[in-house]
């Protein structure tokens, strides 16, 4: 049903008794043209684009728990397209453009809020690296501004400019960056995909693949029985290696824990998203008023979905070093998500070596901002059997060819990306 202030008002008169479920809670059919494993943002977005852009509507999204129960519902909600390397830059801008029309596409308010993403620099070397990146963005038609300290003092007087171990010297600003309400993105895609006939099947865990004589994937085995499929796409951040292993694949991926934190709700204090350049800390303030912040991954392989104190302390040290006025603001909740860290810090969107199985994985801790773009190019790959041009470099064989996309220049050590 159509959502608007009018439908709300109408519903209010009937005490909101007539709302339908936001998405149909479907039961599995015997067969689908495409099965997407993973009812997170990427999986649901893929399904919606398959249905809306590529005319493939006989699609099922299989979710082992409740939709959005993975990283889609456990992130710091930042959206941006400020990447510096060929392969990334164009893709994330494609994604950003899709963010900018999401509400109208989906008839669901995901609260996309382009309040700006600011990366701070504290040395000449960092400034030069940001200049390189910012120019790459501009050459690709993406907005970017290099701000000096004077400009920042006006814009964000509360930053630690003078009393700091590593004083803020300036920053790279993308005004079109910002945040979006993570759960609403999941529900919005589910709502819109469901309206187009996509089956969203919760509490349906994939336990294996069915293959034909030639090894082609013909469907999946699940906790709710076998389901046939023309093609199977996996978008299971946090479980990529485990699902791939069911098809006998090893991936260039390690799973790590990334913690995130939210403070008590306070009146507006911090305007946009900012990242500390001399430590591990980034922060934004949600519409509800909580400071949503995080830092580096804990640094060891983990599926435990919780982290430890040293990183929590490290993050808060960064916060206090950058914004000393938050000392008395209280940290309300701490949680951890499983990050599938690829070996060069860049995702993999490709056909797998197994016929009929398609991979969307390795988003490290950057998956949320990619949600619409990832859905679009993965749908493109599934529908057309060839990479979308903006995802052409996300091939799996890039590691064999030596064509890594390594923004941080850390090499094959996931916990450093």
């Amino acid at each position, binding site marked *: 049903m159509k*959502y608007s*202030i009018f439908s709300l008002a109408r519903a209010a008169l009937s005490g*909101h*008794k007539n*709302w339908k*479920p*936001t998405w149909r809670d479907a039961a599995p059919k015997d067969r689908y043209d495409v099965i997407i494993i993973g009812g997170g943002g990427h999986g649901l977005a893929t399904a919606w684009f398959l249905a809306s852009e590529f005319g493939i509507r006989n699609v099922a999204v299989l979710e082992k*728990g*409740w939709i959005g129960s993975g990283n889609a*519902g456990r992130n710091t909600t930042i959206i941006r397209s400020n990447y510096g390397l060929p392969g990334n*830059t164009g893709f994330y801008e494609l994604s950003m453009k899709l963010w900018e029309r999401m*509400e109208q596409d989906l008839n669901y308010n*995901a609260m996309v809020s382009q309040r700006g993403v600011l990366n701070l620099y*504290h*040395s000449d070397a960092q400034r*030069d*690296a940001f200049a390189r990146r910012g120019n*790459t963005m501009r*050459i690709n038609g993406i907005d970017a501004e*290099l701000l000096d300290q004077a400009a920042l003092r006006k814009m964000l007087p509360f930053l630690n400019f003078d*009393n*700091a*171990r590593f004083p803020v010297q300036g920053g790279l600003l993308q005004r079109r960056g910002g945040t979006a309400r993570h759960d609403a993105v999941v*529900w919005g895609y589910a709502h819109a995909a469901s309206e187009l006939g996509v089956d969203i099947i*919760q509490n349906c865990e994939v336990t294996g693949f069915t293959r034909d004589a030639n090894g082609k994937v013909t469907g999946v085995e699940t906790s709710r029985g076998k389901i046939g499929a023309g093609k199977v796409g996996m978008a299971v951040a946090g479980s990529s290696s485990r699902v791939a292993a069911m098809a006998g694949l090893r991936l260039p991926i390690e799973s790590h824990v990334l913690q995130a934190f939210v*403070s*008590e*709700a*306070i*009146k*507006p*204090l911090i305007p946009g998203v900012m990242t500390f350049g*001399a430590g591990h800390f980034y922060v934004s303030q949600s*519409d509800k*008023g909580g400071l949503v912040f995080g830092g580096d991954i804990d640094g060891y392989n983990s599926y*435990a979905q*919780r982290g430890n*104190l040293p990183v*929590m*302390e490290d993050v808060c040290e960064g*916060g*206090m*070093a950058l914004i000393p*006025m938050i*000392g*008395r603001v*209280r*940290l*309300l*909740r*701490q949680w951890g998500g499983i990050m599938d860290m690829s070996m060069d810090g860049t995702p993999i969107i490709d056909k797998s070596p197994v016929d009929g199985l398609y991979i969307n994985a390795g988003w490290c801790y950057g998956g949320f901002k990619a949600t619409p773009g990832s859905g679009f190019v993965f749908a493109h790959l599934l529908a057309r059997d060839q990479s979308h041009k903006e995802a052409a470099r996300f091939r799996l064989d890039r590691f*064999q*060819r*030596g*064509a*890594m996309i*390594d923004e941080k220049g*850390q*090499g*094959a050590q996931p916990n450093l990306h």
Partner: protein
Amino acid sequence: MGGDQTNRLTSGGLIDRSAALNFRFDGKTFSGFKGDTLASALVANGVKLVGRSFKYHRPRGILTAGSEEPNALVELRSGARREANTKATTAELYEGLEAASQNRWPSLSFDVMSVNQLFAPIFVAGFYYKTFMWPAKFWEAIYEPAIRRAAGLGRAAKVSDPDHYDKAWAHCDVVIAGSGPAGLAAALAAGRSGARVILCEEDFVLGGRLLADGGTIDGLSAAEWVARTVAELSAMPDVRIMTRTTLFGVYDGGTYGAIERVNDHLPVPPEHQVRQRLWRIVAKRCVVAAGAIERPIVFAGNDTPGVMMASAMRSYINRYAATPSRRIALFTNNEDGWRTAETAIAAGLQVAAVIDARPDVSPAHRSLASKGGFPVLHGAISGVDGGKGGVRKISVALTGGARAEVEADGLAVSGGWNPAVGLTSYHRGRPKWRVDIAAFVPDGAPPGMVAAGSANGAFGLGACLREGFEAGAAAARDAGRSGNIGSMPVADDDAFSITPLWHVAGKGKAFVDQQHDVTASDVELAQREGFQSVEHLKRYTTLGMATDQGKTSNVAGLAIMAAVSGKSIPETGTTIYRPPYVPVAIGAFAGHHRDENFHATRLTPSHHWAAEQGAIFVDTGLWKRAQWYPRAGEKDWLESVTREVKAVRSGVGFCDVSTLGKIDVHGPDAGAFLDRVYINAFSSLAVGKARYGLMLREDGIVYDDGTTSRLAEDHYFLTTTTAKAGLVMQHLEFCRQVLFPELDVQLTSVSDQWAQFSIAGPKTRDLLKVIVDPAEDLSNEGFPFMGAREVGLRGGIKARLFRISFSGEMAFEISVPARYGEAMARNLMIAGKPFGVTPYGTEALGVMRIEKGHVAGPELNGTTTAGDLGLGKMMSTKKDFIGRVMAGREALVSPNRQVVVGIKPTDKARRLRSGAHIIPKGETPGPGNDQGYVTSVCFSPVLDQWIGLGLVERGRERIGEIVRAHDPLRGEDYDVELCNSVFYDPDGGRQRG
């Protein structure tokens, strides 16, 4: 009005009536006593209205007497110390305390935003997802800013937190959370058995519910027993009692987080003291005796000021001798709630009625009712009449359909008790449902942790003592302590019976989560819209996400969800519990590490000398390095740096390069070892010689570079870049210990042992002759380029001398033991005086390395190969080394790679900037023709223009080509020439001369 404490009882309570304290709430002055919380003092002063709710801005009063409080949130203190969302129920009263209600404008009693209540029919759960979408640009321009202003609760301080925090470690056998009967009994047993015990109590007095509910233990009054027990514990050297300390989280390996509010009970911390201290407690065992939290019943008007948890009302009356109201009604579905009626009568208050949802009540309570002369109504509350002034009248739907009304100015509610299952659930353990007490109890607790007492669902006093004592004894035993635990404290168990009642259907808003204004109908709406998983329910309605983390609302919420979706409560399940147990100040997690103390600072051996010279310092990693040495009259850094460069190129200068990583590589296989970690050979290096080496990562990308010298057959002295010093040491240890264990080699960092100086310029030898022992031959023959050996210095100390050059000039590096570093700098100035010696900083160093075309950090950026850097020929083909194989991958040897090349603007007056991109001339910049970028730039005094290095596609084949330096960020676009990266003395004659 104000200061008269109208609702203070004339006697009783754990307050110090001799210590009156004045405080201000919303600008009005009141008085209370030492031992009060802000909430109890407000109660004593008859203040009912304390806050406004999150969404509807409804008037709210005090609901609880503890850290589970959803409503009574205030801005405590002012100015830089303003603390938003402080729970009045846990804020200790101190003289001059200042607090203000929040989320209202202009005032608490007249709040404009309460118009939101008119829109309540539209502002249902998730309404914002369904609207504010058209026109698109309005969301950020209008809707969102409005929502943001309305949302949030209190206002944080807008200036730097003036207080200090620190962090500490503690170690023990048994850590105990909570000092109620179970916690104290656990501490007794563990302490007596000789265990090292830490007892954490979030309150400022020990005793937990005993403080409010009393009772008899070992024949003593609760107060006497607590006193006796605390005395016994305090006498034990290895028992540490920490009040005002909340155990908030459990982490891996028996590490617990606790926050100690050291000085929050004072206006400001005393000098040299911290506000709060973060504790990391390492314990073999943990006993969770954190008690239980009484839960509300959801009914229409249950958020009216004056409606209070029954146990909280007892706390105010018994512990604080402050009565929230004079004529009290009680609504309960369990036996325990009746204590509040008993308390009220004992305190000489009126009981208007007891509304009991159960079919029957005990004879004892019947007679209490007749003695107290109040009716017992069987049924449930269907509505509350009253506004911001508080409860006036209560409508009751009697079992059987009849209605009744009760006049009262206060309503105590008891819906039963929820064990505090937070700590036990933080490792994703899911609590299990116990039907007999209609509550979740801990299950799947982290290793080494057990719950005891009411935290474990044991609601009787005797049971709490028993469970606590046994848990404490067992924990100590597990920790290997076996002393005599003596006798267990004993008390009677009072019966607990409950008939679950979660929600009373009826007209009017019935609140589940009072702070977030989530109503029973919101829960029903969520269910209707398919948000049936408890996690969906939480996220869609925001139930339980407020500052109380749903301590009073979660269970009721999921019980209502269970009812409407026709599932059982255990089937519906709980959300995942997240630490911290109570909100913790961010400053406490940072502790000492803020401002200049954010990270440690490393100083070079000549730092203080350089400071005396007026050097400007730059942060390089943790180091402070002299960047340049300004002189009087110089107008800017460029003038100083240019002077330093010219001085070196024409005479002699020196620079402290001690920040380079320095590693002693010892052992018979040292050479073979270095052959494997460097792309070039070192086993063939002669003793007394130095060689430049390049290291790759195993993926074939350049890792680090530096000069390594052979000081003896079995001793190499290896240097790394400043940035990678620690990482290279770790990498070499990995190679030594893991990859090549068969090699006999030992590694030691000597970075801090040696003060190292680069001395450069044509007059270097002249200077050295003055300071080096005359017996040493420094001639080109006696000490050729890349020579390295120990020499004596005049005055008797030994130094290591290396003839290496980063500047391209005739140069040496000299190292002396670090404590001589400052003397070395002074002596170089003396020795060099006749030659106009000039100290130079990292900027001049950088200028000369760029003029010389040496690569550094900006080129060794973690994505470049040896070939990219023009060093491909160094890769030995005669041996294996780390990175050799992967360096051969197709894309890494492609002829189209971006490689290091020199760059200079065609207009000599032009300033070149790092980060500018290289675009072919005459083309429109775009992703297709972005051919590289400028990595390093400097103003070259030698060439008298800005020059730089860059990484450019096929750069070396394009020497002489004119291309565009495109820099839209800085609005610049100009022609540059690609040239040889060695701008200065390409054939290297000067450094060899």
